[in-house]
């Protein structure tokens, strides 16, 4: 469903992606792991056109991703994104955040959008927070609203950019469990994460990225339990046993 072929990307003189080739099938959950600065987030941002790429090709359901073309709007409504820092609209309530896209981008009737918005908030366990503004919510609650906002677009896939990295440790679980439910329901997900437990339990496949290339990829359990490449082994050792 999502295809990357030999994708290159530079910021000025620094080449952050040096030929990434990968694919994500429908209903698959793929976790991207790797050290910071390795280009993980850039891959996600290229998939939905927040960044342009210099060479190679990215396609979503056969449609080429080009951040400078009008077609990018259609791709973005099919591939939603959840950010590390939530990026909720602070001047609108939780419910308004969720229905913003359906109302103004998809032009759904208001009653229908509101009904579905409330259902989505209930799905992420926040039915009682519909009228609350984001600054009054905890980080975990904000991120769950952000997931509901992404779901409201009825996307074919959701990209998660380190969704729990900005959260207090005790709030990580509530976000991960919402994500696990999504995966169980068959949502196609690409997750950049440092949560190795989540990757092991929920992901179908894991990509280990370092220095702008895919160093190792494969079934989640085999990459995480028996990494083949020395760089993967080293990375996992440092993440799992920091002391």
């Amino acid at each position: 469903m999502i295809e990357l072929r030999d994708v290159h990307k530079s910021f000025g003189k620094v080449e952050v992606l040096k030929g990434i080739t990968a694919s994500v099938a429908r209903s698959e959950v793929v976790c991207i792991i790797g050290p910071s600065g390795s280009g993980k987030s850039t891959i996600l941002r290229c998939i939905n056109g927040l960044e342009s790429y210099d060479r190679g090709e990215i396609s979503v359901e056969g449609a080429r991703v080009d951040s400078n073309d009008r077609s990018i709007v259609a791709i973005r409504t099919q591939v939603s994104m959840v950010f590390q820092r939530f990026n909720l609209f602070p001047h609108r309530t939780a419910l308004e955040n969720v229905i913003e896209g359906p109302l103004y981008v998809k032009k759904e009737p208001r009653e229908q959008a509101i009904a579905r918005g409330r259902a989505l908030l209930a799905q992420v366990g926040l039915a009682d927070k519909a009228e609350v503004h984001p600054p009054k919510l905890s980080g975990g609650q904000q991120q769950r609203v952000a997931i509901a906002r992404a779901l409201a677009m009825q996307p074919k896939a959701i990209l998660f950019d380190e969704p729990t990295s900005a959260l207090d440790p005790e709030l990580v679980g509530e976000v991960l469990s919402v994500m696990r439910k999504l995966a169980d329901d068959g949502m196609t997900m690409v997750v950049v994460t440092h949560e190795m437990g989540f990757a092991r339990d929920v992901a179908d496949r894991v990509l280990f990225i370092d220095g702008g290339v895919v160093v190792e990829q494969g079934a989640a359990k085999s990459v995480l339990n028996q990494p083949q490449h020395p760089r993967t082994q080293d990375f996992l050792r440092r993440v799992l046993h920091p002391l």
Partner: protein
Amino acid sequence: MQKFFHDAVEFVPILLQGVWLTIVVTVGSLLLSTVLGLVWALMRVSGIRILTGLSAALINVIRGIPIIVLLFYIYFVMPDFGIALSALQAAIIGLGIAYSAYQAENFRAGIEAIDKGQIEAAQTIGMGWWLTMRRVVLPQAVRIILPPYGNIMIMMLKDSSQASTITVAELALQGKLIASSTFKNTSVFTLVALMYLTMSIPLILLVRHFENKANRK
């Protein structure tokens, strides 16, 4: 003091006619400068190179010309090109254009202060540039923009007196006319100053209100 009150009774009604024109010039040019300023600012942040450059050049040209020269140009030079405006129209247009540069810079600062993540979030739910501005950026930028906007209002109220140089009989010119025909400079200009101050005070309070609101967040 008694003489002052005696003069006041005599001159206030005439000065009030000037007050009316001062308000018309200020409100008219405030509206025009707001609309133009918003257009310049949106051009500036559009990301389209031609519009950005055009807007930057326009703002610099407008900023670099004194208001009084701009007024002379519109009132005295434009008729040579077949555009004859009344003094009042010329004053509103001149001050509106002059202040649009400051409005634009204020709007731009407000827009650019909005976190980039907000714009990206809007993009990822499929919003285009205009929808992002209208639904996400501008509503948040207003809080930042309002306190300086109030200060610009006060400056415009006072600078409306420059319309007197192209024969608009607003408060300052009305005062000058009375003073030069009665020689009661002290009474007349004290009254004029008090009237400007009276008009400014509500605006000053408004600015304070905006600032409190922006700080409360």
